C-alpha cells in the first residue's frame, strides 16, 4: 500500500520537478539562515556563524542527489536521458541511421507481411466459432474432396463422430434484381450449412435443413455481407425481396455476418442458395446421381472429445458400406480429414509448404539484417571507443554505458519496426483489396490483427537486443587508460573471418536473386510478344451464358446469330467471331477424345488424341487472327443439314494423321462414333497456359455443335472502353436480362501470366531486400575497415600515397568480396533459371541483357555501399589526424 502511494507521489513529483527543486532550495536556505542566527546569538561573528552553519548542514550536493533519487523515478529519468543522447548520436550520423532504419524496416516489414498472410491463410483462416474442431472431408487416396449428393447424405446420416455435416458446390449464375443483370459466383449449400458453422445472421434469417422439401423446394438466398454492401448498398429492406436467379424467382432471406465470406479462404461467393435447388441454378439435377460427384466439399465440427483419427475410422466404415452397397458407383471410398479453408490438402499442403518456406526465408533475412547492423554497430562502437574510455575514466559504470548502447540499438529497432509495420499496412491493405482475377471473386483478406502486432513487436525488440549485443564485448574489454594514452588499435587483416564468409554468402544470394528476377522479367516481357496462335491485341472478349437468361436449343442459336449480326454493325468493328470458349481466358476450356476413322472401340484408352475443342462461327479465325494454313474455314452452310466438318491445328494433324498433307480431307471419329471430315488446318497456338507444350486442337462449326456458352471475339482498333460500352448497349438492346462479362483479350492474358508475374514480383522484391542487405553488409565492412585504419591511411597519405592507392587500401577487400560473391551468385542464378523456366514462359539466362543487368546492378550496389566510406577515406587530413594523437 505504502509503496504504491509512494510510487504515485514519485510520478507526480517527476512531473513537477522544477517546483520541487525550488522548494528544496528554499528550505536549505532557511535552515542555514536559522542556524546562522542561532550561532550569532551564541556569540560568533557573522562570517564564522555562517561557516559553522554550513559545516553542520553537511554536503549540500550529496544531499540534493539523495533527495532527488528519493523523489522522482530514477530509472525512468536515466532512460529519458539515454534516449535524448541516443537521438543526438543518431542525428549526428544520418547515413548510418537511414541505412539501419531502412534495413530494419524492410526486414521487419517483410516478416510482418509474411506472418500476416500466414496468419490469414493458415493460422486463422475462417471466422467461425470453434474453428479448431472444424474439418473438411477429403478422399483418402487423393487430396480432392468431391462427393455425390447421395453419398453426402449417407455420410451425414450414418456418421457417429460429427455434430453434423454440411456440403456446398460453387456455381456461376445470372442475378436479375430488376435493374442491371449481373453475374455472380455463389455457393450452393446444404440446408444445414449455416447451422453446422454455428453462425448467426447479420440480418433476417438463414435457411435451415427444415426448409428443404425435395428438388427446387427452397428458392432462398442468403447474401454475403460484402455482396450486400456493394450490390445492395446496405439496404436493410432487402430481406423478403424476390429476385431472379437464372430467370427463376428466389427470395432473399437474410445477410451473413461481416467476417464470414464462405468456407474457402480465397474465394468469396456473392450469396448462398440451397443445394436442393441445383436444377434451377445449374440446369441439371444430380441429387439422385450417386456416380456424379459434383459437390465441391463436405465438412463439419467433430463431436466433443472425438479425435480426428476416430472420425476418419468412422467415415471409412461408412465408406466400406458404400462400396459394398453401390459397387457400380462407389469404388474405393476412403476418407481423410483436412482443413477446409484451403480446399483440403489439395491447396493446403503446397500453400502451407510455400508459406513456411517464405516465413523461414524472411526470418533469415531478419537475422542477416541483424548481423549486418551488428557489424555496423560494432564499427560505430569502435569509432566511439574514445568517448567510451573517457566516460569510464570519469567514473561511469560499464553497465551504464552498455545501457546507453542498448538504448541506441532499441531506438533504432523501434524506429525500423514502426516504419516496417507502417509499410506492411500499406502493402497488406493493397493485397487485401487485390483481385488478381477479374472473373473470379478471388480475394484474400490479410489485414493484420493483434497476433501480427505482437509478433512484430517481439521481432523488433529481439532484433534490437541482437545487434545491440555485438559491441558488448568490446565495451567490457575497453581499457580507458590504454585508449586515452593513444595506444594503437590492433588491425586484423589477411586471414578470412566468418564475417567475410557471411558477407560473400549474402552477396551471392543477392546476385542469385537479381539474376533470377531479371530472367523472370525478361521472360515475361518476351511472352507478351510471343506467337500465341491468335492476336490478343486490339480485341475484346465478351462472354455470357445464354442459359442464364433461359435460352436453350434453337432459341439460343438464333440469339447467337442476332448477337453476331448486331455487334458486326457497331462502327469500328472489323470482325466479330463466336466461340464457346476463348484460348487463354481463365475459367474456360473444353476438350474431347477423338478416334481414328477405323476405330470401333471408343474406350478412352483407345483414343488417338485428346484435343481442345472449340465450337466457332465462320468468322472466328478472322476475328482471332488465327492463320489458316490449308483448306477452308467454315461457312454458314455448315449447319445441321450439311456433312460434319472440322478445322484442326498442325499438332492434331501431326499426331492423328502423321502430317498436314495427309490430314486434308481425311476423317476422324468422336466418342459417340460421329465421323467428321477435316476441311482446313490452322496454325498451332496456346490454349490454356503459355508454358504448355504444343497441343492438338479442333474447331467445329457452332451450327453443327451448339452451346449456350458464348464468347464473342470483337476485333477493332477503337478505344477498348468505348467499344465495350457500345457492345454492352448493343447486347442490352437484344436482351436486357443477359449478364455479359467483357474485357480486352490481352488483359485476359494477365490471368494466364499470374504465376509468372507472381514469380517475377516475388523475386524482384526479394532481390531488392537482398540488395539492401548486401549494401548494409558491404557498407558495414568498408566503414569498419576505414575507421580502424584511419591512422594508417593518414600516414600513407602523409607519405605521398595517391587517392587511388588510398582507396585500394581502404576498400580493396570489400570489392574483392563483392566480385567473388557476385560471380558465384550469377552462376547459381543461371543454373536456377532452369527451374524458373517451368513457371515463367521463355525464361532463359542466355540473354546479354541478363548478364549486363546483373553486372550493372552489382556494380551499382557496390558503389552505393562504399560511397560514404570512400568519401571518408579520401577526406582524411593527415595533419589533423596526426595532431589528434
Amino acid at each position, binding site marked *: 500500500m505504502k509503496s504504491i502511494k509512494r510510487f504515485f507521489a514519485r510520478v507526480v513529483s517527476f512531473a513537477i520537478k522544477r517546483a520541487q527543486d525550488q522548494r528544496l532550495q528554499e528550505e536549505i536556505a*532557511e*535552515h542555514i539562515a*536559522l*542556524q546562522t542566527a*542561532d550561532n550569532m546569538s551564541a556569540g560568533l561573528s557573522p562570517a564564522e556563524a555562517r561557516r559553522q552553519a554550513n559545516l553542520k548542514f553537511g554536503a549540500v550536493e550529496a544531499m540534493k542527489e539523495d533527495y532527488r533519487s528519493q523523489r522522482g523515478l530514477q530509472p525512468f529519468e536515466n532512460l529519458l536521458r539515454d534516449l535524448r543522447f541516443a537521438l543526438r548520436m543518431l542525428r549526428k550520423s544520418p547515413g548510418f541511421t537511414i541505412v539501419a532504419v531502412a534495413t530494419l524496416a524492410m526486414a521487419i516489414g517483410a516478416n510482418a507481411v509474411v506472418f500476416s498472410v500466414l496468419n490469414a491463410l493458415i493460422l486463422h483462416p475462417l471466422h467461425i466459432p470453434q474453428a479448431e474442431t472444424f474439418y473438411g472431408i477429403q478422399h483418402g487416396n487423393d487430396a480432392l474432396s468431391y462427393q455425390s449428393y447421395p453419398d453426402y447424405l449417407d455420410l451425414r446420416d450414418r456418421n457417429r463422430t460429427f455434430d453434423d455435416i454440411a456440403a456446398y458446390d460453387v456455381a456461376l449464375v445470372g442475378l436479375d434484381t430488376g435493374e442491371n443483370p449481373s453475374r455472380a459466383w455463389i455457393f450452393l449449400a446444404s440446408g444445414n450449412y449455416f447451422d453446422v458453422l454455428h453462425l448467426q445472421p447479420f440480418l433476417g434469417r438463414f435457411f435451415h435443413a427444415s426448409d428443404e422439401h425435395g428438388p427446387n423446394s427452397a428458392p432462398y438466398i442468403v447474401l454475403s455481407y460484402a455482396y450486400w454492401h456493394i450490390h445492395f448498398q446496405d439496404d436493410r429492406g432487402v430481406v423478403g425481396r424476390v429476385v431472379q436467379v437464372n430467370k427463376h424467382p428466389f427470395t432473399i432471406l437474410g445477410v451473413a455476418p461481416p467476417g464470414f465470406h464462405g468456407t474457402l479462404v480465397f474465394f468469396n461467393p456473392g450469396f448462398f442458395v440451397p443445394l436442393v435447388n441445383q436444377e434451377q441454378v445449374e440446369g441439371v439435377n444430380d441429387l439422385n446421381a450417386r456416380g456424379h460427384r459434383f459437390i465441391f466439399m463436405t465438412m463439419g465440427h467433430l463431436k466433443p472429445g472425438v479425435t480426428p483419427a476416430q472420425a476418419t475410422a468412422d467415415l471409412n466404415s461408412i465408406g466400406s458400406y458404400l462400396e459394398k452397397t453401390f459397387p457400380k458407383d462407389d469404388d474405393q471410398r476412403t476418407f481423410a480429414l483436412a482443413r477446409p479453408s484451403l480446399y483440403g490438402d489439395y491447396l493446403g499442403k503446397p500453400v502451407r509448404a510455400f508459406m513456411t518456406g517464405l516465413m523461414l526465408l524472411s526470418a533469415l533475412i531478419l537475422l542477416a539484417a541483424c548481423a549486418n547492423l551488428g557489424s555496423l554497430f560494432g564499427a560505430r562502437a569502435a569509432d566511439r571507443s574514445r568517448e567510451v574510455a573517457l566516460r569510464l575514466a570519469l567514473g561511469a559504470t560499464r553497465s551504464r554505458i552498455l545501457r546507453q548502447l542498448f538504448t541506441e540499438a532499441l531506438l533504432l529497432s523501434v524506429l525500423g519496426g514502426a516504419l516496417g509495420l507502417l509499410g506492411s499496412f500499406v502493402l497488406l491493405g493493397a493485397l487485401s483489396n487485390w483481385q488478381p482475377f477479374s472473373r473470379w471473386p478471388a480475394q484474400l483478406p490479410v489485414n493484420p490483427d493483434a497476433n501480427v502486432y505482437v509478433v512484430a513487436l517481439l521481432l523488433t525488440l529481439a532484433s534490437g537486443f541482437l545487434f545491440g549485443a555485438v559491441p558488448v564485448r568490446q565495451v567490457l574489454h575497453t581499457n580507458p587508460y590504454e585508449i586515452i594514452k593513444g595506444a594503437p588499435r590492433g588491425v586484423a587483416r589477411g586471414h578470412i573471418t566468418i564475417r567475410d564468409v557471411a558477407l560473400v554468402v549474402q552477396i551471392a544470394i543477392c546476385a542469385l536473386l537479381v539474376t533470377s528476377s531479371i530472367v523472370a522479367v525478361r521472360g515475361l516481357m518476351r511472352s507478351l510478344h510471343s506467337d500465341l496462335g491468335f492476336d490478343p491485341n486490339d480485341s475484346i472478349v465478351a462472354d455470357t451464358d445464354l442459359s442464364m437468361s433461359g435460352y436453350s436449343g434453337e432459341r439460343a442459336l438464333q440469339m447467337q446469330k442476332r448477337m453476331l449480326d448486331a455487334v458486326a454493325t457497331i462502327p469500328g468493328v472489323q470482325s466479330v467471331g463466336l466461340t464457346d470458349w476463348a484460348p487463354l481466358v481463365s475459367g474456360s476450356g473444353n476438350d474431347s477424345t477423338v478416334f481414328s476413322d477405323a476405330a470401333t472401340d471408343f474406350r478412352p484408352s483407345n483414343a488417338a488424341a485428346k484435343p481442345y475443342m472449340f465450337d466457332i462461327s465462320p468468322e472466328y479465325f478472322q476475328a482471332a487472327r488465327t492463320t489458316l494454313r490449308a483448306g477452308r474455314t467454315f461457312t454458314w452452310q455448315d449447319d445441321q443439314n450439311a456433312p460434319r466438318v472440322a478445322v484442326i491445328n498442325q499438332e492434331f494433324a501431326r499426331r492423328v494423321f502423321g502430317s498436314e498433307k495427309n490430314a486434308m480431307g481425311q476423317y476422324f471419329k468422336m466418342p459417340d462414333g460421329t465421323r467428321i471430315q477435316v476441311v482446313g488446318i490452322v496454325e498451332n497456338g496456346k490454349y490454356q497456359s503459355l508454358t504448355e507444350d504444343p497441343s492438338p486442337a479442333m474447331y467445329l462449326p457452332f451450327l453443327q455443335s451448339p452451346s449456350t456458352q458464348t464468347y464473342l471475339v470483337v476485333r477493332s482498333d477503337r478505344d477498348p472502353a468505348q467499344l465495350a460500352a457500345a457492345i454492352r448497349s448493343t447486347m442490352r438492346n437484344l436482351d436486357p436480362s443477359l449478364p455479359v462479362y467483357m474485357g480486352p483479350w490481352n488483359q485476359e492474358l494477365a490471368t494466364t501470366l499470374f504465376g509468372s508475374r507472381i514469380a517475377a514480383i516475388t523475386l524482384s522484391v526479394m532481390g531488392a531486400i537482398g540488395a539492401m542487405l548486401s549494401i548494409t553488409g558491404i557498407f558495414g565492412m568498408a566503414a569498419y575497415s576505414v575507421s580502424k585504419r584511419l591512422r594508417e591511411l593518414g600516414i600513407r597519405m602523409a607519405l605521398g600515397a595517391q587517392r587511388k592507392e588510398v582507396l585500394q587500401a581502404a576498400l580493396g577487400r570489400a570489392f574483392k568480396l563483392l566480385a567473388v560473391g557476385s560471380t558465384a551468385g550469377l552462376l547459381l542464378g543461371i543454373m536456377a533459371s532452369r527451374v524458373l523456366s517451368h513457371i515463367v514462359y521463355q525464361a532463359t539466362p542466355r540473354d546479354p541483357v541478363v548478364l549486363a543487368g546483373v553486372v550493372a546492378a552489382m556494380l551499382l550496389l557496390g558503389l552505393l555501399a562504399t560511397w560514404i566510406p570512400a568519401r571518408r577515406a579520401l577526406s582524411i587530413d593527415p595533419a589533423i589526424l596526426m595532431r589528434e594523437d
Partner: protein
Amino acid sequence: MKQKADVPQGTLALMVLKTLDVLGPLHGYGIARRIEQISGDLLAVNQGTLYPVLLKLEQEGVVASEWGASENNRRARFYRLTREGRKQLQVETQDWQQTAAMIERFFAAKAEDLS
C-alpha cells in the same frame, strides 16, 4: 550502501515522528535542533540528511507540510504529523520497545541461564 543507510535512516524517521508528536508542527531546522538536543551527536553534523527523510515520510503520507512563517518571520516549510502518522508512530514505538526489551533481556542473560 543502501543497507547501511537504512538503520540510521529508520531511526531518524522514528525520531522525526516522535518530535512532531511531542512538539507539534515544526520546520526542518526546528526538527534538526530538537533531535540534536535529545540525541546528542546524531545530528551534530550532516543535518541535511534530514530532508530526504522528510520527503520520504511525506510521500508515504505520515507527515504533511505547508508553508508558514518562521520565528524570524521568514517563509519556512512546516511539517506536521498526519493521523496516519500518529498511528504509525504508535505501532513503531511499540515495535521498538518490544525489540529493545528483547535485546536487553538477551544481553542480560548469563551463561547459566542459557544452558
